[in-house]
């Protein structure tokens, strides 16, 4: 019996996760509480037969939906996660927020990228697992499976390492860290069909209420719901087969200017 498409996608992701765990000194999974990093978390549990041998990091901007905090706390206990919450308290106390800052770029940089920098510095991680996918955004389509970031977190997108077959970069200069992307080859639809097959729990924010649902979740201040009547995973899968709307259409930081995402990622944004 040939493996199904989902089996192949999953197997490749497990392979990448296991490579990362073996090849790096101290890795962590970056969990945004969204569907992609939750599917990745699920795959990590399968890769290591249940208990995760590394930390799970949530970068908390303080502006996440209350449902996301509830979901996080519930499953952190259920899955016995070693959860670290990273927060740029200094910036938050100084009043940083989407309204206070001049641009989305500044706010994302302070509350996400900077908070992540602080967490990495404190915990000494040399690699992070992230749930990003190529089909989410044109800039993400340019990513490598394993991507080095220098001390300043910079992504040198004009000079990415060769990545032949399954040989991912495994040697780094002191002070750099790697972003590992085990879900890069998945699509939004793959994530949902896998979520259905595996019965992976997801935040209720994804399901329609009063004719609207979130297709991509982050800070409540910068996410817009889309028109939808899809109130369960089956209906979402049906909806995706016909929609022409882009997945991240509701995400403000993508739209500020065409190249905001490129700039954010170059600076170390997730």
């Amino acid at each position, binding site marked *: 019996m040939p493996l199904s498409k989902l089996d192949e996608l999953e197997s490749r992701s497990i392979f990448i996760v296991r490579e990362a765990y073996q090849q790096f000194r101290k890795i962590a999974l970056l969990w945004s509480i969204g569907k992609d990093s939750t599917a990745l978390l699920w795959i990590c549990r399968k890769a290591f037969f249940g208990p995760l*041998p590394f930390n799970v990091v949530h970068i908390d901007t303080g502006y996440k939906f209350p449902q996301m905090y509830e979901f996080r706390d519930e499953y952190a206990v259920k899955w016995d996660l070693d959860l670290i919450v990273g927060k740029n308290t200094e910036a938050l106390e100084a009043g940083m927020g989407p309204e206070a800052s001049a641009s989305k770029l500044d706010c994302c940089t302070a509350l996400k990228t900077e908070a992540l920098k602080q967490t990495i510095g404190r915990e000494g991680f040399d690699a992070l697992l992230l749930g990003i996918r190529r089909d989410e955004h044109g800039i993400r389509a340019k990513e490598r499976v394993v991507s080095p970031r220098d001390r300043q977190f910079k992504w040198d997108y004009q000079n990415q390492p060769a990545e032949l*077959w399954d040989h991912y970069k495994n040697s780094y200069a002191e002070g750099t860290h790697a972003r590992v992307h085990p879900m890069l080859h998945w699509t939004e639809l793959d994530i949902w069909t896998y979520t259905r097959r595996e019965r992976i729990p997801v935040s209720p924010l994804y399901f329609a209420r009063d004719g609207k649902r979130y297709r991509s979740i982050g800070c409540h201040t910068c996410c817009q719901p889309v028109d939808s009547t899809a109130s369960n995973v089956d209906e979402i899968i049906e909806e995706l087969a016909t929609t022409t709307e882009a997945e991240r259409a509701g995400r403000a930081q993508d739209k500020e200017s065409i190249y905001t995402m490129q700039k954010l990622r170059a600076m170390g944004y997730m």
Partner: protein
Amino acid sequence: MGAVDSQTRQLKFVIVGHVDHGKSTLIGRLLYDTDSLPPSKMEEIRTASAQLGHDVEFSYVMDNLEEERSQRVTIDTAQIQFRTPQSEYVIIDAPGHRQFIRNMVTGASEAEAAVFIVDAAGGVREQTRRHAYVLAMLGIEQVIVVINKMDLVGWSQERFQQVSGELTSFLGQLGITPLLVIPASAKLGDNVAKPSTNMPWCTGAILIDSLAQLRRRRRPQQLPLRLPIQDRYELDGKKILLGRIDTGTIRTGEEVLFLPSGVKAEVASIEVFLQDRTGAEAGESIGLTLRGDEPIGRGEVACPTDAPAAVSGRFRASVFWLSNDAFRMGEQLKLRCATQQVPCTIERIERLTDSSTLELIAQDARQMAATQVGHVVIRTERPIAVEPFAQTPELGRFVLTRGHDAAAGGIITETKG
């Protein structure tokens, strides 16, 4: 678009060819004419094109970096999904500029097939030939050729036949026979997703329909087992070997041979989370426990006892040098093959060739520069499990690293030096 059948795997193909012959434009056109682009993406492309003061540029579908758009050149490889009513594809765009050959090879190394573009006016050029060489080296045999920009040569059948003949004969030297050759204009859309009315002499398939001729590469279940071990993982006192099966199958109770160590052990259990398993097959990522406590870890390859891989510390290979810093004889490198990693030296560069002209540069060369191909003898610090690339690609291909970076890719031609 109908219901998506999750049982169908996707076919991955790469678009290759000389810089500016229209690779990114072809992908953009294909997606645009099949309504595969969200309206917001089209809007973004229109805005970006207007900002730079030119007509709607289809290549922006793939060229998403600001620098790629302002300099009008693809810098890095990118992938995008594409569906026809029958099939699902992943299209890999690869940069055509010589400077970005490393990114081209990165993209092509994932592909099972290729669409090869040649500009009808420009004809076969340096990177056209180099990319053909890369395809041959990577073992990509399924190739569809598109002779692009037919509008620039007045839709001339004669010019089409001339360019097509030149390319086909070059591909022939490399052992590649194209499935078909299509005259097209990616910019205007002729023969991409819609038949052209400008070339009544052309009666063959158009690009979108020809994709159905591409076959998926199967994970060979029938070949002998090859399971490179990634890690030895301990859970509740149990020692589990982790790895993905490259070829063949494995069952509990079976005796397997680990190479290069030569240790034999019986498979006590196959570990898949929350499943009871007695067997597993090529493509699966599994765990394995052994009867007894053999010291097996990363770098060993599980094989059947009666059909082992070769174990060798000296073998022949073709090496494509990628790094901008040339290799000099005597340098120490690291070789990565499957999950094995070992220091190595290149003992001889028997023949050094140009990957574009295929001409011999030198015999017994002392150095090897970017885009040159060396037919070499490699000596590893200790023997490793290897096979000829033509037999088992996963154990016949390798990466050479220097310092922190991959410097070359290679394939093994003979397992004995």
